[in-house]
Structure formats: C-alpha cells, structure tokens
C-alpha cells in the first residue's frame, strides 16, 4: 500500500482497477500483497490501514491476500512487522490475526463469486469509477464507500460495501434495485449466512415494490458481505 510517513500516493485504487480488469479478462483470480511493516519511508501501518487494505481488496474481487512482511527483516529500515527481529510477537500480530480470521470466514463465499461491478461513492479516486446507480446498488448514503457487486455460480447477486474512511464509522443506507426480497450477511464469527444483525434486533432490511432498502453501521475501513436471495 502506498502509505508514506508524510503522504499517501493516490495510485492504490487505480492499481486495483487494472489488476481486477486484467484478471477478469484472463479468467484467473487475483492476489494483492499489502504492507504490514514499516520500511524506507513507508509508515508503520495503523490498524485501520490494514483493515482498509483487506476490505478494499475483497470489494474489488480479490481472492487471495498476502502481507509484506511476517518476520521483520534484519535490515535497518524494516520494523514493526507481526514478528520482530527477535522472533517475538508485536501488537501487529493480533491486528493481522483478527483480519485473517475474518477473511477465513468470508473467503469460502468470496472464492465462489465473480466480481461484476465496483464503484466508489461519493467521490471516485483517480483511475476508479463513481457509482452510476445502474447496477444492483441504485444509491448509497451515509459515508465514503467502495461498493463491489458479485454474482454467484447460480446467478444470485452479492454485494460488498467497504468504508473507505479510516477514522469514522458510517451508518450506511443502500437502495437495492432487485426482484429479490431477502438479504443475508456472512457472519464473521461463524462464517454462516444470517439476517443482517442490527443491535437489539432492529430491522435492517425493508422490501418495496421495485427493490429493497438496507441499513447498517460500518466501522472505520470495515466491510460487509451480503447475499440477495
């Protein structure tokens, strides 16, 4: 990830766009490697930076992920990897462990899906697309997001929404243009599909003649994977 100590280089999404498109054209999965240690003038990635790397990759249809690095190289500029130069776990270890367990829950579903659309709202970074509302997601509000649309092998639509704000939570409202009346999310604790879990059992989804409205909170840089059926 091009996150430096003093600035961020705005080519991250453009790179994802190109890789996604070429992988789809070639019919092969793509794998992104994200930064998990500090080196040169790359900053020590924060918890939110790591989560951002993971969930934007997944929203773009990434089907594999790796971290650079696990063990911290014994080189003067490398530091703060998950395992330090003495072989001890650093705080980064737990950050990545949590993300990995989440991906293990989402992965078995994601690996059977094909990415059909990906778009940003309310602003598109350089080289990326703004949501045009022509897909399943007709409108999104409540935060800065990247929306990935997918299709399963039997043609069912899936949606992944990731919060591109790394410091603020977002209360997201999605308007979905769909004949389907049900929506489920993948629970990252069990890996199973379930109704979208709102606090105290509040309804997350509402059906209308021409589609559905779905509401939920997203933590900073977090994502949610949902299936329509």
């Amino acid at each position, binding site marked *: 990830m091009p996150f430096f100590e003093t600035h961020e280089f705005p080519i991250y999404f453009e790179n994802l766009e190109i890789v996604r498109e070429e992988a789809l054209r070639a019919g092969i999965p793509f794998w992104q490697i994200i930064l998990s240690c500090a080196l040169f003038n790359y900053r020590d990635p924060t918890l939110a930076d790591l989560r951002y790397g993971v969930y934007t990759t997944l929203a773009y249809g990434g089907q594999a992920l790796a971290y650079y690095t696990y063990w911290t190289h014994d080189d003067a500029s490398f530091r703060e990897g998950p395992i330090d130069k003495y072989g001890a776990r650093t705080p980064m270890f737990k950050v990545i462990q949590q993300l990995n367990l989440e991906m293990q829950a989402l992965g078995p579903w994601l690996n059977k899906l094909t990415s059909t659309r990906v778009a940003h709202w309310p602003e598109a970074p350089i080289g990326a697309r703004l949501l045009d509302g022509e897909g399943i997601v007709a409108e999104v509000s409540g935060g800065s997001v990247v929306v990935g649309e997918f299709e399963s092998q039997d043609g069912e639509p899936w949606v992944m929404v990731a919060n591109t704000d790394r410091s603020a939570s977002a209360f997201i409202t999605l308007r979905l243009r769909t004949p389907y009346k049900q929506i489920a999310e993948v*629970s990252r604790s069990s890996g199973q599909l379930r109704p979208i879990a709102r606090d105290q059992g509040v309804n997350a989804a509402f059906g209308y003649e021409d589609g559905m409205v779905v509401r939920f909170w997203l933590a900073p840089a*977090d994502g949610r994977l949902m299936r329509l059926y």
Partner: protein
Amino acid sequence: MKLERFPISFWVQPKNTYEAWKEVAEGGYTVAPFSAESVEEGRQVLDWMAELGIQGMVLNSKVNWSMTAKAGWKDVVADITAAYKDHPALWGYFITDEPGLDRFEALGEIVAAFKVADPAHIAYINLFPNYAAADQLGTISYDRHLETYLEIVKPELLSYDNYSLMEDGDRPQYFPNLESIRAAALKADVPFMNIFLATPHFSYRDPSAADMRWQAYTSLAYGAKAIAYFTYVTPDVENYRNGPISIYGIKTPKYDIIRQINLEVQALGKWLVGLKSTSVQHTGCAPAGTEAFCGCGLVAEVGNSNNNLLLGEFADEEGNPWLMVVNKCRERAVWVTLKLRTQLGSLHEVARSTGELRAIARDQGVDAFKRYEDGMTVAFWLAPADGRLMRLSK
C-alpha cells in the same frame, strides 16, 4: 447501604467454561453476569467463580420487567432465589436494562419480591443515561426520572450507563450525568455504578488507554461504588469491534489495558466502599452543570497550572477526610500542588500495588507534604487521566 466489595463488572459474558471465567478473574473483574440452561449449570459456574475469587450475577430470561403480568410470577422469584441464594459466589440477580417510567411500578414489585425471598443479594437494574429521549425516560427531566425511580423501585444500587466518547469528540453530558446520579444516590443513601464504554460501536470511538482510565477515575472521584464496562466480549453485530475479547474469543490489547485499571480499582475500592462523597469540584473551566473549584473546602488552593483537575472529597466512618485528585487531561501528566486547610497532621495515599495506606511516595524519597500552623501543602505528579486517593488523619 454499604457494599462489602467494590463491584467491577461488564456486559456481554463469555461462554460458560472454566477457562473463560478464569480469564474474567485474571482481567480484574469482580462481578460477572452469567446465564445457564439449568440450575446445575448455574451452580457449576458459581462454584468456578468461588474458586476464582469472583462473584456472579444471574441472568434468567424469566426474570424481566414484564414478569408481574403472568400469574405465579412470585414462584419464579422463589425458584431462582432458592436455587442460588445460599451460594457464596452469588452477587445478585439481573432484572432489567434501561426501563422507562411506565415500568417502575412493576419493577418496584419485583425488587420487593426479591428482597423478601433473598435479602442478602442485589436485584440489579440499570438506568438510561441523561441523553436519553423523553420518550425513553417517560419524563422530560432526567433528575425527575431518577427521583421517581428511587422512590418507587427502591433499588439497593443505582446503576446507569453513559457512553460519551464519540468519534468526533466527547459528549458534554458525561459530567452532568455523574452529577445527577451522585446527588440522587446520596439522597437515597444507595451506592451508584457507572457503566462506560470499552467496545466501540455506532459512532462511539475506540477508547484509548487514557480514555479508559479517564472514565474509571472520574467515576471514582464522583463517589462511584461500582463500575462496569460495555462490553467484555465483542458482540458480532453492527460495527462492534475491538472489545477486550474478540468475536473469536481471543484477548485483544484492550483486555490488558482494562486489567491494569481493574487491579488499581480493586486496590482503591476496598477503601472507597467505606467512604461517603462530600464534594466534587472542577478546577479551571468547570463543565456546564458541575461545581467549579471555590477554595472554600478542604482544598484551599491549587497550583497555577492545575486548571484541569477533578477534586473529590470524602469522609470515612471515623470522620477523617479523604481526597481524590484526578488529572482530567488525557494527553499530559500534571505536577499537582495543593494547599489543604486542616488541623490534621498526617497524610497518606492508597498504594495501588499493595492496596495499603502509605506515605505519599515521591521519587528518591523527596517529601510530598509539609505541615503548617493552619494546614498542609502536598505536591505530586499525576499521569494523564490518572487519580490519587489520599487520607488525612491525626
């Protein structure tokens, strides 16, 4: 009413395994909510808790605010108290969370029934914060909500929750809520519990170590006799994240942050349970709804740079004055200098390592306090968001 031990509790309990309750005990919590499928399982949990030196609060779905609508509800109370009341690790029974005024009559009957069936344990209810809507409270005034609750329900502990740490700053209602609760609790002569934020969710921020310390120590300075954290285990709903225990049952960095605070509160708590809060003042700019430092009590003067302190004064059963000083600044340590107006000649602090009273410990044995004809001066460092509990005596 006096609690025997300072409760340190939480919401959202782990699974009923010995290892999970051991982690709770090691985390410094002293009262743990639990639910069980059977009395046998419940007593097994309490046996483990007794071994681990903590106490349990029974959660049972049959006990709730609406139970009085069903015939035979007192049999439910009789059955549950009979099942657990003799157990040495029992702390109390959970009744309900955040009731509005329209539920107080029923809750009064339930609390009374529990008192008859088991006078030794607490029937626990938690109240709304002061930023709850009038439709939730059933009153337009939060103080009136508390007053009617204490009159009608007659609880043995006044518990409330207040989550004021938002992603875009702090809610201004945090200190006014402590003020309202402290005043109501003193008037009714019941101890109070503050439940504060540990697990970020909605637009509540992920509290830093200093935020956690700030919530704990400001509560103590206001005279809280119990604290609890929302939550312990991270619920797998909404955007809940980074609680002390993750959705995968793994300890997070927050577990260790809270364990340190809990061990400190255990050391201070054994003294605090016996103290009565006599005044709470803010130096510098006092938040709306709080008392500004006047220099007219035990503390006659604070140092020039001491403009962000919380001064809680207390009295013990022998009439000795106690003082808790909290640094409200969460970023910087403060060098505190106080002039105390007193004829008493000794000053001690509670050591958080041993829980014992000792001379105020300055680095390299420098004297912390000096006596004068009309009082004493005391000086010490306070870390960001930290507090110090001191006793004056002859």
